[in-house]
């Protein structure tokens, strides 16, 4: 990975997009194991139906993890200073998580050069599932 330089990025730039595979039951089972979040609403169809949902659906934190991956695909993890988000929609089975990030500010703080990014995870239909912000230090 060639290192991203503060001087080479501009406000308005998009960072490289991250497009994941469609979310399947298998994805959700693996994520339950990896995260320790075993809430049956994400893995057990019978349970989901009892809760009046049509089917199981993705853990919110799974999309958050994809947003994290969007950032760490762009810069090394140690450069991430802050990462916050809010959930805006349910990610359903078959949705293709698509993460984007845009630089909205360049500034200096604590003696280092930083950029503020607007980050977003949506599905293949452009429906937003997660929106947030990240602050990243750049050399």
């Amino acid at each position, binding site marked *: 990975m060639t290192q991203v330089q503060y001087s080479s990025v501009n406000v308005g730039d998009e960072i490289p997009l991250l497009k994941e595979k469609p979310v399947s039951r298998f994805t959700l089972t693996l994520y339950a194991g990896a995260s320790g979040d075993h809430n049956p609403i994400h893995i057990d169809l019978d349970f989901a139906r009892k809760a009046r949902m*049509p089917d199981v659906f993705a853990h919110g934190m799974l999309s958050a993890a994809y947003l994290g991956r969007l950032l760490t695909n762009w810069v090394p993890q140690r450069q991430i200073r802050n990462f916050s988000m809010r959930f805006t929609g*349910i990610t*359903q*089975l*078959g*949705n293709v998580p698509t993460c984007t990030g845009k630089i909205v500010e360049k500034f200096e703080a604590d003696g280092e050069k930083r950029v503020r990014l607007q980050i977003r995870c949506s599905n293949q*239909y452009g*429906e937003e599932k997660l929106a947030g912000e990240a602050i990243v230090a750049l050399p």
Partner: protein
Amino acid sequence: MRKLEGKVALVTGSGRGIGRSVAHQLAAYGAKVVVNDLDAAPADEVVREIRAQGGEAVACVGSVTAVDFADRFVRTAIENYGAIDIIINNAGYTWDNVIQKMSDEQWYAIIDCHLTAPFRILRAAQPIISAQAKKEASEGREVFRKVVNISSVAAGGNAGQTNYSSAKAGIIGMTKTLAREWGRMKVNVNAVAFGHIETRLTQALAGGASKTVNIEGREIKVGIQQSMIDAAASVIPLGRPGTPDEAAGSVVMLCLPEANYVSGQTVVCGGGFGSL
């Protein structure tokens, strides 16, 4: 005559075949159409064709079996045209086998597409239709809305189609039930059961040849051997299979104001063949 001027119609599986003809005919009557298909290219093409003829249409691509499809379909209509007036549940295909060879996957794929998807679409549309109807009632107006569910003469039984015939019989029950539930909202809910209509599903195959289409990653056999088609035609009183335009006509006639007092019925469109 623009008898459906300004009406908003949602048609599933309207990228090809009968659904495509339904979309075109509704547009020609003045309706704004939400075109759906599994495949983006044919859906976009139908939208382009309707617009080229001065009509209004928008695509909502994706499988009707996706969990979030119904909401997205309804939202596409509301965001683009602000209302729902006509819903045609047409998307579908066949995946045949005798019962001892029919897998659960095969059973559920067909039930999901032909029965669960219409159920979810109609459920998602209910709050919107109800709000529209309440408003019109408070203004002392009677505005009719239309649902046409596509069934098949196979609902009356057809060897090799346990899944499909069950789904197509099921949709007739759903039609009759909703005609009762939705009558007070002035919705006419009817079904049309097709006989043999010439489309991709029923295309003629030359001796021994086979053809498949890709439905959600599964290769599904389509087409009928020419010899079978010839034999079938001999029992059709009108002497030949129907065209997609003829099939669509029987759907669209139920959407016209002339049919406002028809509800809970199943029209058989089979050239005189088939009864339910």
